[in-house]
């Protein structure tokens, strides 16, 4: 079927015309909301089929749905994973994990009960992490100091930064270290279930990912219109460099991406990044088109020109 795909691409491209007249914005938005019908809708779809500009707008304006995580292409139907053997062994494994977690976390709860406990404030691209016992709290970290009693509720931060209370359940310990440990454990388990993807950069500078050891590759959207020229992977960390010094990092195997922006204290290269190498999750080096090397020893948070 592959040749026909390429043939279609070629011929469809020829159907694209530079259109001068575009439908008004309110009709495009009404189309997105299925508020149009009959000839009005047909004329909009006809226009969209031939106008890349309006397609861009309609796609950008499409509402983000919460269920995007569960979107699986039906070109590759997923196997029936909810089968009896999986359920049976899954239950056994879950019980074992709970028992091990309960046994291992109980002493930890006592160790952590009189040390600063911190929850990061809103940082959309990062998961909440626990600060090490002797780490100083940073300005954007809400800290509970030694000796201060932790209220018997778990405080979570929503996107507006407002704290909301989650009631205690079934007599679990009053401090929230247990909850955080469990949350981290759940995160780790979820991450562990996911196979580490393989990454490559296409010739046009787009990022591609394979979840089946390179048998099939799917384009990954990182950010609008960036051309990437270099990639480095260390565990679940992925760094992407490209034109005009653009640098992205993902700490969760490509689930979320954050662009690294230069600041007065932390400059970044302005020319094209052509190579990135990371020996481990902290120490790395990048090379730019102007043949200048930059190094980092903190996982790319700050870079130093060599």
């Amino acid at each position: 079927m592959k040749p026909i795909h390429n043939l279609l691409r070629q011929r469809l491209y020829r159907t694209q015309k530079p259109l001068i007249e575009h439908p008004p914005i309110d009709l495009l938005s009404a189309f997105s909301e299925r508020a149009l019908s009959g000839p009005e809708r047909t004329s909009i779809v006809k226009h969209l089929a031939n106008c890349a500009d309006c397609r861009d707008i309609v796609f950008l304006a499409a509402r983000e749905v919460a269920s995007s995580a569960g979107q699986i292409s039906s070109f590759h139907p997923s196997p029936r994973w909810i089968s009896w053997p999986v359920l049976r062994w899954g239950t056994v494994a879950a019980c074992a994990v709970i028992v091990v977690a309960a046994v291992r976390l109980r002493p930890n709860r006592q160790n952590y009960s009189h040390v600063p406990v911190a929850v990061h404030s809103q940082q959309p691209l990062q998961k909440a992490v626990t600060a090490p016992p002797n780490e100083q709290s940073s300005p954007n970290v809400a800290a509970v100091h030694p000796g201060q009693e932790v209220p018997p509720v778990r405080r979570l931060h929503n996107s507006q930064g407002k704290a909301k209370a989650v009631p205690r359940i079934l007599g679990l310990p009053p401090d929230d270290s247990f909850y955080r440990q469990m949350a981290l454990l759940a995160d780790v388990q979820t991450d562990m279930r996911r196979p580490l993807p393989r990454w490559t950069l296409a010739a046009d500078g787009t990022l591609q990912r394979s979840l089946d050891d390179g048998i099939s590759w799917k384009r990954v959207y990182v950010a609008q219109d960036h051309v990437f020229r270099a990639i480095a992977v260390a565990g679940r960390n992925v760094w992407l460099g490209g034109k005009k010094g653009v640098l992205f990092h993902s700490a969760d195997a490509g689930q979320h991406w954050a662009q690294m922006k230069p600041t007065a204290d932390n400059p970044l290269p302005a020319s094209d990044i052509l190579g990135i190498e990371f020996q481990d999750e902290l120490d790395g080096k990048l090379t730019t088109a102007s043949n200048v090397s930059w190094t980092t020893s903190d996982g790319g948070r700050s870079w130093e020109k060599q």
Partner: protein
Amino acid sequence: MRDDPQVAGELPAELNALLEELFAKSPGLSFGLTFAQFKIILKEIAIKHVSVDAQESASTLRDFFSSLRIDDLVLARACAAGNDKAWESFLSRFREKLFDIAGYVAKDSAAARELADSTYADLYGTKLRDGQRVSKLASYTGRGSLEGWLRTVIAQEYVNQYRRRRRLVSFEEEAEVGTQFPAPPVTTETETPVDARLEAATDEVLAALPPDDLFVLTSYYLDDKTLSEIARTLSVHESTISRKVDKLLKSLRKKILGGLSRRGMSRRQAEEALEVDVRDIRINIRNRLTQETRSQSFSEGKAEVPGGQ
């Protein structure tokens, strides 16, 4: 205003009653809008969106007026007219959303803030026409929700900002990178035509496709949109799009084979012609299409897209 039949003149009593009812249910009065102004707004919208023939029909007009988002429309027009209470209501409903939408569209907090700010300036109306502030909200017609309209306006603004930015390169960038010269065209990628009959057969089949199918194919093959992105745009389930693409491919293949047969190819020749990958003919179509489509999508030379006015 055009000299159109029903709408341009005095509305029939039945329609007038409907408009009165719609106005009474709307917060128009509290935003300082009079019924006469409300009626003029609705008539203008009908003239713009309802075909002249359909304007003859009272039932079509009734359905059209009833389908409008009157509350949103009244709010938007009152804001455009500078009513403070309307602005208060608008900001309480959409201020956060404006930033959320900008964040989703721009995918970067600094760019999102800039995008939301410039959109807000447009909505408030920083330009003057005949001494009057021109608010973009005056172009909202209530055909979809005000939130959906804002989403589309922000997307359009993002595309326009992108074009404007492409024209500007900072001195630092130029100093570090050096003056850029376009590379000469790659001569090895000269386009050798595919069998003309294959092209003709494919074009014929594509031209006969319904617009919906063509939209799905173009989005999937030219824009590299995922099935879920296309499904979201068309408000259908992803599996529906997946099935559609699958079915379309099979049907296209069959029709192209038929077209090739009509152009004098034997069944076997037609099959062989379809099996030849166009990339084998010294053209890397995928690369070219991706690059060209990108530059076409946000090309500098084009007029700023969709008016909205």
